[in-house]
């Protein structure tokens, strides 16, 4: 506010206050005079208080109106299944609710050439079945469904109970760690009975496994589905040719699936343990299915039993950790741990599913020439 409160005399030289200000000053001045005349100091005080209060309230009101509207995430459409709730569970707000769809950004992919990937989609058909349960549908399986599983030719969610809405297949077993091999056996049998001709390769994953299906197709494109072979992250204990880590996911050829189902009919394979991955490895050995080498042309691993951070960070997994003794091929930590064309990561929570989806399919360095060329002959 300018100094000097002149009582509206128009002959005043020098600066002029804007008309409005002059008016208000005049009004206040007049009122002050009135009060002084009436000698009512209290009234004057009340007036001044009122003046201050009025100013402050108005100022706050203006600021509140002028505050920027908060940024709203762009909404696409309502989830067709309405309000998904963790009805059986406490603390629903701890879990990641809602979904994120990166594939709506079509314009960012206008210069993307997907012809090779689309060719492989037709040539190397993959059925993915995801091991889940009723308590995990809204918290885990939902986010698998919203991300990587869409890229499988066929995807099935296997649970102890049928859920027509999700949908899940009911395997008729109980939930629990000791039921894992039963679930696996029944799941593969279900796939054999209902979907044998819908795919060439049959992948098992958990609801906390992230799979890059395009890279799985690249790996499998060099083999025939009529070969008795299966792939995953190979572990060396117990089974001579090795067995595949359950959490990192594993994939059976059509021939391997046929032999697996057949073996249970003839009794060659039985449910002899609930340790699912080991049991599967034993059965595969029994029916002469080869434990394939899933490493890339530079001998870098593609299936990963842990999240990326665990493998890429130096000294994350202690040297005494079982992992180093289990890996069939010499394992590395740091950048050498992982192929550029990784197929899977395990122990992936729901938010990391979206993170990995974004990192794999969307975020990229514009114009960058990648070092690793998967199509050039191996070093």
């Amino acid at each position, binding site marked *: 506010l300018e100094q000097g409160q002149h009582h509206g005399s128009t002959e005043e030289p020098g600066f002029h206050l804007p008309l409005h200000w002059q008016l208000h000053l005049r009004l206040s001045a007049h009122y002050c005079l009135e009060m002084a005349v009436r000698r009512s100091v209290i009234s004057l005080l009340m007036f001044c208080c009122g003046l201050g209060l009025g100013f402050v309230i108005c100022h706050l009101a203006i600021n509140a109106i002028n505050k920027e509207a908060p940024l709203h995430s762009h909404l696409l459409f309502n989830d067709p299944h309405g309000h998904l709730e963790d009805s059986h569970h406490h603390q629903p707000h701890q879990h990641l609710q809602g979904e994120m769809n990166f594939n709506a950004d079509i*314009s960012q992919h206008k210069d993307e050439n997907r012809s090779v990937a689309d060719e492989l989609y037709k040539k190397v058909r993959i059925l993915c079945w995801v091991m889940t349960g009723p308590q995990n549908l809204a918290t885990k399986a939902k986010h698998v469904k919203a991300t990587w599983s869409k890229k499988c030719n066929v995807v099935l969610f296997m649970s102890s109970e049928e859920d027509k809405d999700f949908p899940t297949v009911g395997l008729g077993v109980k939930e629990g760690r000791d039921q894992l091999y039963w679930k696996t056996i029944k799941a593969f049998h279900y796939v054999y009975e209902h979907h044998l001709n819908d795919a060439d390769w049959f992948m098992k994953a958990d609801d906390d496994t992230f799979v890059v299906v395009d890279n799985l197709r690249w790996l499998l494109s060099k083999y025939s589905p009529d070969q008795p072979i299966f792939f995953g992250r190979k572990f060396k204990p117990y089974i001579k040719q090795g067995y595949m880590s359950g959490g990192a996911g594993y994939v059976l050829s059509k021939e391997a699936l046929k032999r697996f189902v057949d073996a249970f009919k003839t009794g060659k394979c039985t449910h002899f343990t609930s340790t699912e991955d080991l049991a599967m490895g034993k059965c595969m050995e029994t029916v002469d299915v080869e434990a394939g080498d899933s490493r890339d042309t530079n001998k870098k691993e593609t299936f990963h039993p842990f999240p990326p951070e665990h493998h890429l960070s130096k000294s994350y997994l202690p040297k005494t950790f079982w992992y180093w003794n289990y890996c069939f091929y010499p394992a590395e930590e740091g950048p050498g741990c992982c192929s550029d064309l*990784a197929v899977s990561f395990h122990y992936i929570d729901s938010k990391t599913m979206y993170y990995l989806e974004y990192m794999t399919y969307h975020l990229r360095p514009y114009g960058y020439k990648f070092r690793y060329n998967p199509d050039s002959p191996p070093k």
Partner: protein
Amino acid sequence: MRGKAKMMTEGTSFVKGVMLGGMFCLVFTLFANTEIRGGSGLRSHEHHHLKAPNKEELLKLPEAKRLELSLTIRVLCLIMVTPKEIGYWASAVETWSKHCDKAVFYSPETIKIFESVSLATADKWIQTRKAFQHAYENYKDNYNWFFLVESTTFAIIENLKFFLLNKDPEQPFYVGHTVKSGDLEYVESSSGVVLSIEALERLYRILDDSAKCPEKGSLLWKMSQDKELAVCLKYTGVLADNAEDDEGKELFNSKNINTLVVEAMSKNPNEVVEGCCSDVAITFDGNSPNHMHVLMYGVYRLRPYGHTFNDALLFMPPVGSDND
């Protein structure tokens, strides 16, 4: 009776005061907005938005021209580190900063373990001033873009160069994620600040003006260093621009990807929300050292086989690096 009458006059006095005060305030606010602008009208709340180049437009240029263009963008990275953050320092050295044309690390004091320029002060505004002064004095002839980041920020230099492709460095550019504070629009320091050589030159000159751009800050109270920078640049006629892709998504992010995903989804728990982040994002802040390594792998290596891009530019991987 007399008492009551007195109370009445007091009451009405109060009410009259409130009303007058309110009116005063309204008028004052309206006038303040027009007077300070020199009466040019209410344009104080406009954001300045800068978009990434249009790829179709770029592809129209001959290939030789595009290659020439990509080589002319030379970025100097100014990375602010502290002795307590050795882990962040190491991860910046080992990861994304290898893609800068040159990376210079600035620290508050001399440290033996890593090479850095000591700014000999803990004051963030003085650090910023000295870093830019040092960069200008030593590198003004060889670099035309200057990029100031915190140690927790991961930057994708190729995407920065793509964004800067159609911006003339001889023009004053001051770019990043902008925030409005009253009438001041400034670039948030946590997500990275980009200055063209012209803007840096103007800044360098005004830093000597202790009336307009003093070391102790321009107001009686302490403003953050990103606001101080904006005030100084404003005196030279340089205004902040917010960087966006052609869908309006932010390129400079003050939060990491996980946080952005969770925030977007938590705001709309019953909806399917659009992907949070740009394909050609430039920065994400708030990363731990381990995250930097994951980002390095995720950005420069992890990809789906069979998807290729027809990009208008070509950037080669740096020599002597094994994690990209």
